[in-house]
C-alpha cells in the first residue's frame, strides 16, 4: 500500500456518494469546457483569413435594413466579384415551427453561392416564378415537401397587403450541398425578393437585411471590409462588414452579452459545485474523525493528515474535472463538425489550462476547511468522541 493508495481507498469508502459527487464535478467541468469555448469564440477578434465572402449589415444591427441601391457601389469596389442580398422573412411552418427563410434575388444568390447544388432548370424556375421558393434538401425531407407543391408558410413579421400573415409559395427547387459540410447546412429556404417587396404590407421595399459580397480572392477580405465600411461612414446607412463566420456569431450575439451570460452561468455552476463537493468533503472528514485521530496516533503528523484530506479533495475534483473536460472536448468537436466548422467549440489549450486552474482552485476551496479541521483535531478528544 502507498499513501496514494490510502487516499484513493478513502475516496471510495462510500461509493454512491463519491460517484454522485463525481458526476456533479464532471457535469460542471463539461459545462465549463463548452461555455468557455463559446466565450472564446465570442471574444475572438475578426478573422479574415481564408474568407471568400463578406457580409455587410447596418452598423447598428442587421435588423435595420439597408437600401438595395447600395449594390452597384459595392460591386464597384476592387476585389468584389458579385453581390447578393438577403432579407429575413420570419417564416413559420404550420403552427409554430420557425424556419430559416430569406427573400433574395435568385440570380445573384446563385452566383454568390456555388456551393448549393441544384439543376439549372430549377434555378431558372426560381428566377421566373414570382411566388417561387427553393428549399434545402434537409428542410424538404424533414417536412416532406415535393417539387411543384404549394407550401403554406406564415411570417411572424410581414403580413401581406391584405393583412394576412399567411403566405403560399410554389416549391420550384430543392438544393443540396456540394460536400458533406454544405449538405449539413441545407436547412433553409428562399423566396423571391421582388415578390416579397411587392406583396408585403410594410414599407421595406428596396431594402434588405444584409449584402453578401463574393470576393475575387480571399486575400482581399480585410481590405474590402475596410473599404466598404469607410465608404458608408457618416451616411444614414453606416455598415459593418465581416466574414460569414463572424456574422453568424454576431447573429447569436443579438441575444445579449454572451460573455456575461457565460460568466454568470459558470459562476452559478461552480458555486453549486463548491457547496456539493464541499459538503461531501466536510461530511467525509466528520465521519472519520476517530480514524484521523488513529492516523495521528500512529505517528502521522498534523501536516500529513492535512495533506491526506487535501489530496482527497484534489483527486476527486481532478478526476471529475479531467473527465468533464475530455467530454467537453468530444462534444465540442462534434458540434464543430456538425456545424461544418461554423461554431468552433473544440477545446483549445487555453480552455484546458483554465480548466486545470479551476481544478486546483476548486480543490483548495472544498478541501481546505475540512483539511484544517483534520489538522487541528486533538487525538485524545477525537478518540474519546468529544
Amino acid at each position, binding site marked *: *500500500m502507498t499513501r496514494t493508495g490510502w487516499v484513493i481507498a478513502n475516496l471510495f469508502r462510500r461509493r454512491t456518494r463519491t460517484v454522485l459527487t463525481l458526476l456533479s464535478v464532471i457535469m460542471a467541468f463539461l459545462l465549463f469546457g463548452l461555455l468557455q469555448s463559446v466565450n472564446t469564440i465570442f471574444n475572438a477578434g475578426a478573422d479574415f483569413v481564408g474568407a471568400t465572402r463578406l457580409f455587410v449589415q447596418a452598423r447598428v444591427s442587421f435588423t435595420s435594413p439597408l437600401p438595395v441601391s447600395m449594390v452597384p457601389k459595392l460591386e464597384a469596389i476592387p476585389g468584389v466579384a458579385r453581390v447578393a442580398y438577403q432579407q429575413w422573412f420570419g417564416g413559420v411552418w404550420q403552427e409554430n415551427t420557425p424556419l430559416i427563410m430569406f427573400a433574395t434575388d435568385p440570380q445573384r444568390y446563385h452566383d454568390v453561392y456555388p456551393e448549393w447544388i441544384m439543376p439549372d432548370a430549377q434555378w431558372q424556375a426560381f428566377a421566373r416564378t414570382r411566388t417561387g421558393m427553393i428549399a434545402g434538401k434537409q428542410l424538404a425531407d424533414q417536412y416532406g415537401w415535393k417539387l411543384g407543391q404549394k407550401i403554406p408558410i406564415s411570417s411572424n413579421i410581414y403580413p401581406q397587403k391584405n393583412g394576412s400573415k399567411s403566405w403560399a409559395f410554389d416549391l420550384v427547387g430543392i438544393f443540396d450541398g456540394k460536400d458533406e459540410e454544405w449538405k449539413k447546412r441545407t436547412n433553409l429556404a428562399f423566396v423571391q425578393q421582388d415578390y416579397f417587396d411587392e406583396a408585403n404590407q410594410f414599407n421595406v421595399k428596396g431594402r434588405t437585411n444584409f449584402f453578401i459580397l463574393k470576393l475575387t480572392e480571399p486575400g482581399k477580405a480585410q481590405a474590402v471590409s475596410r473599404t466598404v465600411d469607410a465608404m458608408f461612414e457618416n451616411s444614414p446607412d453606416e455598415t459593418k462588414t465581416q466574414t460569414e463566420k463572424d456574422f453568424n456569431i454576431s447573429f447569436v450575439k443579438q441575444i445579449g452579452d454572451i460573455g456575461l451570460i457565460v460568466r454568470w452561468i459558470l459562476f452559478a455552476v461552480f458555486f453549486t459545485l463548491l457547496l456539493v463537493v464541499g459538503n461531501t468533503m466536510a461530511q467525509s472528514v466528520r465521519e472519520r474523525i476517530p480514524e484521523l485521530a488513529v492516523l495521528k*496516533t*500512529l*505517528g*502521522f503528523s*498534523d501536516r500529513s493528515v492535512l495533506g491526506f484530506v487535501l489530496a482527497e479533495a484534489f483527486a476527486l475534483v481532478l478526476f471529475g474535472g479531467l473527465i468533464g473536460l475530455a467530454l467537453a472536448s468530444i462534444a465540442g468537436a462534434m458540434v464543430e463538425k456538425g456545424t461544418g466548422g461554423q461554431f468552433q467549440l473544440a477545446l483549445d489549450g487555453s480552455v484546458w489550462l483554465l480548466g486545470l486552474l479551476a481544478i486546483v482552485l476548486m480543490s483548495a476551496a472544498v478541501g481546505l476547511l475540512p483539511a484544517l479541521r483534520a489538522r487541528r483535531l*486533538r487525538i*485524545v478528544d477525537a478518540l474519546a468522541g468529544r
Partner: protein
Amino acid sequence: MSNSEPGGNSMSEPMVQVHNVTKVYERGKQKIEVLHGLTLDIPRGDFVALMGPSGSGKTTLLNLIGGLDQPTAGEITVAGRRIDQLSSGQLAHWRAHNVGFVFQFYNLMPVLTAEANVELPLLLTRLSAAQRRKNVAVALEVVGLADRAKHKPKELSGGQEQRVAIARALVSDPQLLVCDEPTGDLDRKTADEILGLVQVLNREHGKTIVMVTHDPKAAEFARRTLHLEKGQLLEQAA
C-alpha cells in the same frame, strides 16, 4: 523518583519515568485536574496493568505515557527521552518509532485489508515496499492471522480485529506497547486469547506493556497491577 515510591521497580533501568505529573483539562470555563503530581517508574520489559474506577485518570496517564497528550506540569521520560517538552510534530515522529497502541474498539481502517492496516505505520519509515510487505507478514504471523491478510475488518471477528490491531502496533518494532482496555469489547475466551498474546509479546519479545483495564482477570496477565484513584497512584500489587 525512587524505587520505594508507588510504582517503582528495581528490575532494570526504567522504560517509563513519570515524575510529579499533573494534568488539568479545561472544559469551557471549568478546570478539571485529573492527575495530581503523579510519580511512577515502569522498568524495561515490565507488563503493568493500570486499574481504577472511571474518572480515576487511567486513560489520561496512558495517553501521557504514549505521547498522545502533554502534561500540564511534571516530567515524562520514555526510553531515556523527555517527551513532555516535544512539539506536536516531534511527538508524532517519536510515537511512530517508539510506541505501539492497542485500543478497546480496535480502531482499524475499514477501507483497508488486514495487511494494509498493519502496513499503515510503515508508510512513515523509509522501508521499501518489499521490506514493508515482509514485516507485515511477520507481524501477522506473530498474531496468528497470516491467513486473513486479505480480509477487511468487517470480514473478521472481534478477536481477529484486535489481533490485527496488535500486529499494527508491533510492526514497527516499538519498545513500548500501550493498551487501552484491549479486551473490553471481547468475550472471556477471546479476551484470554488476546491477553495471552500480549503476555507472549512481553515475555518472549521483551516488549514493555502498559495496559489499562477494568477487568481483574485481565490484570492477572500482567506482571503487576497499579491502582489509581482520583488521579493518584494508590498501591502496587504483585
